């Protein structure tokens, strides 16, 4: 047959890497295939009857989609196997026709249920479904359709899910495939909607079924003849989807174009394999995420919560897309081992509770590169893109909180004061939109909402001291609310609280500090500042507009690009400025009169935690006897103690260390070099001996008086 000939031509062109386990399996299957082939030849007439092809007409009416899956399996075997499988190849044509019918029906169903976007859940069942379909291949010829009710359901799910998974990362697939995939996904969506309630039950069954499906698939493969393409067996699931795509392609083109389509199909197979791999990885993650929302489906959801859900899902899908793009390049080699791993993970996750699932996610999600650096494994990275996607997005989060989380993680919102204000703003919105569920006290309910929001935000980016203190203050006042307070009044109180905090602790404090420092700036001074601090900018601009005439030296480094922004703003305000790289500071320090820097936070022992490089500048100033002023509002004072920058720090994006303008940068391929890991620490600690004075809104203090300030704050606010 023409088809079989082309099939055999195709097989050698598909190349996959072989691991030892794969080789073993291949060998085993070859043996068994040889045996089966022998059997097949003997059983030729009987095979034709037993072949699922004949079962297909029965099932077209019952399970159009499951048929596709079965056909998919078959076709896969066809394409990869020898010309001995004439029966199978013959059946493919018939199947394609039936497929068309099935697809049409699927489309109809899908359109009906297209509004419910439960794609993710489809993915969840996806991995399982693949196995189910393979199992069903085995089952249906053996069993009667009676026993297969569950199986059929699963088949439905699996087929939908399989395809839906691929749909979510559909970019690479060709248009034809997309078309069919879309229709299938829609159908999947519809079916999944039906089975929302059954999920709990079916999940455990599916896990078992996955295993059985695997075994069935393996057996099916052994029975058919295969040579040389047995690697594909490992990538079972993806191949199944590929086959369904193939079939769709085949159905679209008739015999005349079959050669062409098969070649196209091969290419799309490769694409789909990669995409599906990526999707599976994301599926595993997303499944664990959605264990929680499933439980909460009973509770009523406000518009805001629904929006948050949709947003979260969108972002998960976006993340999945990105993952597919990245992983296609990176993980081609690891393809065979990965799918199996993710499948087993999914099985585990479905059994485990949510916190455990989160834990496994976190350990999995720890970026590989950070594991290379022994000393810094205790530090949070937060910047690795993959770990961002892995963070569970609770559908109960307010959209403002979700948005803030993304802004924090992508460093759109940066700087101590900015982050604090953004956090309080998001909190305010959350309070405004918060709807009290029945039988809960306002304070308790809001507190739990606050806890989950805060947990999410801190996982996106570690909190600064200003943010931690703001949350402490808010929480303290929240718990102080009387029990029987009216919801509206409580909200008003909290909102006023937040407004007051921002106004007093940040705005007024900044004004007071600006006035105090202005006393210290004399006419004709050369002031040096490092990095970008909103407070220092305010001080300098206001002093200038008050008539003090001085010169500013702005110091930045390759990593502190924000300093250039500060430079621009100061120049716009009319100040005479100079810009330096930090490497040149020792040259100009003798001409400098004062150094003014901002702080991330002030620690109890008097150390200053601020942007990396500040300690260096302070040391240089000390060596040249130049006084160093640190401008910090009291809300940045934290009750932690730190003597060095190792125990607590934040690791930024390592790629920032690479010089972008240098094309032949030796750091470019650091990921492939096991001995090279760029480390980008964001903070450093300036010891109190290097700081002359700390300017707060209370007073100009020596560094060592930080605990005094904390004590007075405690007396004042109770926090």
């Amino acid at each position, binding site marked *: 047959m023409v088809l079989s000939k082309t099939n055999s031509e195709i097989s050698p062109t598909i190349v996959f890497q072989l691991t030892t386990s794969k080789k073993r399996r291949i060998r085993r299957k070859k043996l068994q295939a040889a045996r089966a082939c022998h059997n097949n030849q003997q059983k030729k007439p009987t095979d034709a009857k037993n072949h699922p092809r004949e079962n297909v007409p029965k099932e077209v009416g019952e399970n159009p989609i499951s048929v596709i899956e079965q056909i998919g399996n078959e076709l896969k075997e066809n394409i990869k196997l020898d010309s001995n499988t004439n029966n199978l190849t013959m059946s493919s044509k018939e199947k394609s026709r039936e497929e068309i019918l099935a697809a049409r029906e699927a489309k109809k169903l899908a359109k009906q249920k297209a509004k419910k976007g439960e794609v993710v859940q489809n993915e969840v069942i996806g991995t399982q479904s693949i196995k189910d379909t393979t199992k069903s291949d085995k089952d249906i010829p053996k069993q009667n359709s009676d026993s297969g009710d569950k199986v059929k359901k699963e088949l439905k799910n699996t087929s939908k899910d399989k395809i839906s998974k691929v749909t979510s990362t559909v970019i690479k697939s060709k248009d034809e495939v997309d078309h069919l995939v879309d229709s299938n996904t829609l159908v999947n969506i519809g079916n999944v909607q039906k089975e929302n309630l059954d999920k709990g039950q079916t999940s455990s069954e599916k896990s078992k079924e996955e295993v059985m499906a695997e075994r069935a698939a393996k057996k099916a493969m052994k029975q058919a003849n295969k040579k040389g393409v047995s690697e594909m067996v490992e990538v079972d699931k993806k191949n199944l989807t590929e086959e369904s795509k193939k079939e769709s392609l085949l159905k679209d083109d008739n015999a005349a174009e079959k050669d062409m389509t098969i070649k196209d199909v091969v290419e799309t197979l490769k694409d789909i394999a990669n995409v599906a791999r990526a999707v599976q990885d994301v599926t595993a993650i997303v499944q664990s995420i959605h264990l929680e929302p499933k439980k909460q489906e009973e509770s009523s959801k406000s518009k805001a919560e629904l929006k948050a859900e949709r947003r979260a899902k969108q972002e998960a899908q976006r993340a999945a897309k990105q993952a597919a793009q990245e992983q296609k390049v990176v993980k081609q080699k690891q393809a065979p081992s990965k799918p199996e791993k993710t499948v087993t993970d999914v099985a585990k996750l479905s059994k485990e509770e949510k916190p455990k699932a989160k834990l496994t996610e976190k350990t999995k999600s720890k970026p590989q590169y950070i594991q290379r650096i022994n000393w810094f494994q205790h530090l949070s990275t937060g910047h690795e893109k993959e770990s961002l996607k892995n963070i569970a997005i609770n559908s109960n989060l307010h959209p403002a909180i979700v948005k803030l989380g993304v802004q924090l993680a992508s460093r759109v919102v940066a700087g101590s004061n900015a982050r604090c204000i953004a956090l309080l703003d998001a909190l305010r919105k959350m309070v405004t939109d918060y709807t009290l569920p029945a039988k809960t006290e306002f304070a308790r309910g809001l507190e739990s909402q606050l806890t989950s929001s805060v947990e999410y935000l801190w996982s996106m980016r570690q909190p600064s001291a200003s943010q931690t203190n703001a949350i402490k203050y808010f929480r303290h006042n929240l718990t102080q609310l009387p029990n029987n307070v009216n919801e509206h009044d409580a909200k008003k109180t909290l909102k006023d609280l937040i407004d007051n905090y921002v106004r007093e602790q940040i705005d007024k404090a900044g004004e007071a500090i600006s006035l105090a420092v202005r006393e*210290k700036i*004399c006419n004709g001074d050369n002031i040096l500042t490092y990095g970008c601090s909103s407070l220092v900018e305010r001080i300098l601009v206001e002093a200038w507009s008050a008539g003090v005439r001085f010169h500013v030296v702005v110091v930045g480094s390759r990593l502190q690009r924000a300093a250039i922004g500060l430079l621009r703003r100061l120049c716009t305000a009319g100040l005479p400025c100079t810009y330096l790289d930090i490497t040149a500071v020792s040259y100009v320090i003798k001409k400098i009169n*004062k150094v003014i820097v901002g702080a991330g936070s002030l620690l109890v022992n008097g150390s200053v935690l601020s942007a990396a490089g500040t300690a260096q500048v302070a040391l240089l100033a000390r060596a040249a*006897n130049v*006084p160093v*002023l640190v401008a910090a509002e009291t809300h940045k004072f934290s009750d932690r103690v730190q003597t060095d920058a190792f125990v607590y720090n934040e690791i930024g994006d390592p790629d920032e260390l690479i010089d972008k303008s240098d094309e032949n940068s030796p750091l470019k391929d650091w990921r492939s070099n096991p001995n090279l890991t760029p480390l980008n620490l964001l903070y450093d600690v300036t010891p109190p001996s290097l700081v*002359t*004075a700390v300017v707060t809104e*209370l*007073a*100009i*203090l*020596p560094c*060592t*008086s930080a605990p*005094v300030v904390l004590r*007075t704050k405690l007396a004042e606010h109770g926090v």
Partner: protein
Amino acid sequence: MRHCDQPVAAISSGCELFMRFITFAKIDVKSFEECEQIMLQRGHIFLNQLLEARGKVAEQALPFISDGCKILTHSRSRVVLQAMLEAAKANKRFQVFVTMSCPDNSGELMHKQLVSAGVDATLILDSSVGYIMEQVDIVMIGAEGVTESGGIINKIGTYGLGMAALELKKPVYVLAESFKFSRIYPLNQQDLPIEFKYLSSVIKSKKNLSQEHPLVDYTPPAYITLLFTDLGILTPSAVSDELINLYL
């Protein structure tokens, strides 16, 4: 008072504290006379506290003057004088080196008073501080003002003395009453307020101040070991703590 021809640091801080103290009282809706009475009362209390402060400081410093020790002091300070006189009364044997402290040679007066009390005192030149430092055991000085940083404002020459003491590892003890605590925070010598450095008559005469000799200088907290005050014996970093308690 700020315009009188005397060093002003202590005056300004004392006055400010006085104002705060008397107005700190709870003045509810009472008649004006009553308020006046209350303020006067508090004023008296403040004054008494001041007068007693010196005695308290001297008492605190007593254990630090050991038998047979050699003390270096700078210019004339009544607190230091009182401490030494009390030590002499307690039959301790010690030797004192007093710098002459130009331009007003107030060290000479200090020397005379010590000798008349029977203390073994030697008058030395300001420039021989480095020479004599290796022979002394402790340095004991007064202060005209104590800054928020924990440093002191004292007669010109104190800074050099502090630097020499740090280099030769001699402890520097400052004896100062609490009303001398001021809220200023100088970053360096240039940062001192002009009223402190020069007599008001000099400032008013609008001479070129860079040609004038300042009266006082600022000794940063790094050079000071301990401060003896009527609030207790403090380290320089604790001064800010006390200041906040006093002023807030």
